[in-house]
């Protein structure tokens, strides 16, 4: 079964993680630009971070046959920081044109401040201008109210609901989002957010329509294998295999495919950095194989 991992911060992970993901069937990962655990002090740090996601991180992924995509955005935590917020907004349009950028995100609310709302709305406009879908980070504290506020801001922007993924959902938020027309994301963690067993229960109760699951693995206690683990739990619970495949492949590729930048045929093959291998099947470069380097 092929898996599209639609939210994972590989910047913070090691090559063993890439190998494990590849062995578990993860063919593509999406890395949303986010907070790095501590605040950055100037826009240059964002420039370097964004370009690492678009350059080096894609190379790392390709070495394991994994396609790497990104979403670009000013995260809600640093939207509060006047040292960087306006400057980051000024550079984002250039990054929204990059070929592997398939959305705007993570944007949204965290502390639920006026500044967060201002920059969230501005970035919804950015998404419209670049014809990109939006990945929205929802608050971990006072979550239900924050979710509702995110939805209000999305409505204010007039961006179509089918182009919005409200992430980090749980048993309470699915009741809000299931009939909205937006996509509902669930970040499956070892201890917090959501876990595989609870995710099975949600699928059994609500089905899989417009649902997306991810590991959101980052620099904290998290597990990049949470999507494959949840696949196993879903199958053991009797969820039809076809539904699971839709959940972990069709749904994320449909959502981010709205960018017009996902080549689904190319995703059927492992990623490769070889400039000639699409033309001549036997010219694979020896040097791109980590086992040989």
């Amino acid at each position, binding site marked *: 079964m092929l898996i599209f991992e639609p939210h994972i911060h590989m910047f913070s992970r090691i090559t063993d993680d890439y190998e494990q993901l590849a062995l578990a069937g993860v063919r593509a990962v999406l890395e949303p630009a986010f907070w790095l655990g501590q605040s950055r002090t100037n826009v240059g740090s964002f420039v370097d971070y964004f370009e690492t996601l678009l350059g080096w991180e894609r190379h790392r992924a390709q070495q394991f046959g994994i396609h790497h995509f990104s979403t670009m955005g000013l995260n809600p935590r640093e939207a509060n920081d006047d040292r960087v917020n306006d400057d980051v907004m000024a550079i984002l349009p250039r990054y929204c044109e*990059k070929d592997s950028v398939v959305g705007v995100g993570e944007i949204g609310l965290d502390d639920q401040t006026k500044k967060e709302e201002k920059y969230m709305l501005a970035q919804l406009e950015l998404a419209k201008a670049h014809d990109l879908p939006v990945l929205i980070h929802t608050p971990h504290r006072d979550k239900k109210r924050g979710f509702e506020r995110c939805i209000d801001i999305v409505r204010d922007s007039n961006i179509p609901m089918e182009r919005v993924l409200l992430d980090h959902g749980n048993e309470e938020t699915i009741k809000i989002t299931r009939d909205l027309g937006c996509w509902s994301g669930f970040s499956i963690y070892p201890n917090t957010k959501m876990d595989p067993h609870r995710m099975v229960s949600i699928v059994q109760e609500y089905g899989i329509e417009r649902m997306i699951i991810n590991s959101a693995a980052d620099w904290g206690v998290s597990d990049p294998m949470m999507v494959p683990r949840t696949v196993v739990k879903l199958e053991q619970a009797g969820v039809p295999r076809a539904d699971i495949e839709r959940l972990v492949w069709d749904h994320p590729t449909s959502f981010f495919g709205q960018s017009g930048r996902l080549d689904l045929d190319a995703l059927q093959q492992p990623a490769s950095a070889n400039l000639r291998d699409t033309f001549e099947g036997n010219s694979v470069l020896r*040097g791109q194989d980590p086992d040989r380097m």
Partner: protein
Amino acid sequence: MSSPLAHLAELLGSETVATLEKLQAEVAADRSRLAVFFPGLPRRTGRDHVGKGHIELGAGTIELAGFRRCDLAAAWLLLATAATAEELRDLMAHGDLEERAMLLRAAHVLPITEVTIEFLGEAQRTNVVLHVEAAVCDGDLVARAVGRPDFPATDANKLILKYGFLDLPLARAIGLEELANAELTRMLQDLATEREAAGRAVWCDTWRLIGRAPAPGTVARLIGGLEHGDDGVRAAAVDGLLALGRDDLRPFATERLEREPRPEIRELLQRLAGS
């Protein structure tokens, strides 16, 4: 001979050129649009290939099979908009994985300037194999650039060593074997010794290159290569010995010939034995 721009247009076809001409017009009106359009070239013009075979394009020779449509489109756009050195530097500095590959591919077609040499320096420092491939494979850019005051043979040697360090095939770098020199041979042999001491594989094209510019230890390494268990190494060793052209070494070829299982290597050995 047509200009590089006209030749690129011929390769790309009228539909792609029409797309590019629109972008060119927008860049002419606002130079900042170049940085916006450049990353979108793969999705706007495609990643497919337009043919294969060596062709002369501009001042250089390229193997068309290594150039995707977007690489050729990048060269067209940069030529048509007369991209400045600063614009090229900006595209490289802030380019994504694909943009940098397109820039390095385009460098095979654009005139060689100090920016080209900076790009080759990037290729030498990077660990992104795609970019080393884009800079060195499927064209004679390195061979044409070497000898400039800002790209002496000593710098080219470092780039070729990097190429071998990454285990990339010499056959895909047009004209690279002609850059063989004794100092490069020393560097390659040192790398080979280090790899052998660690029980690791050695770049098999080492044997091919060192035969073209021997240094102390080269002959022994080439003769030893005839008995190597790796077919690629044996073939390269015979090729290196052919380039070396030492009549006194023929008996080694004759002696190996009887036991060589690979027909293509036997053919090379026969040439060596009879040369």
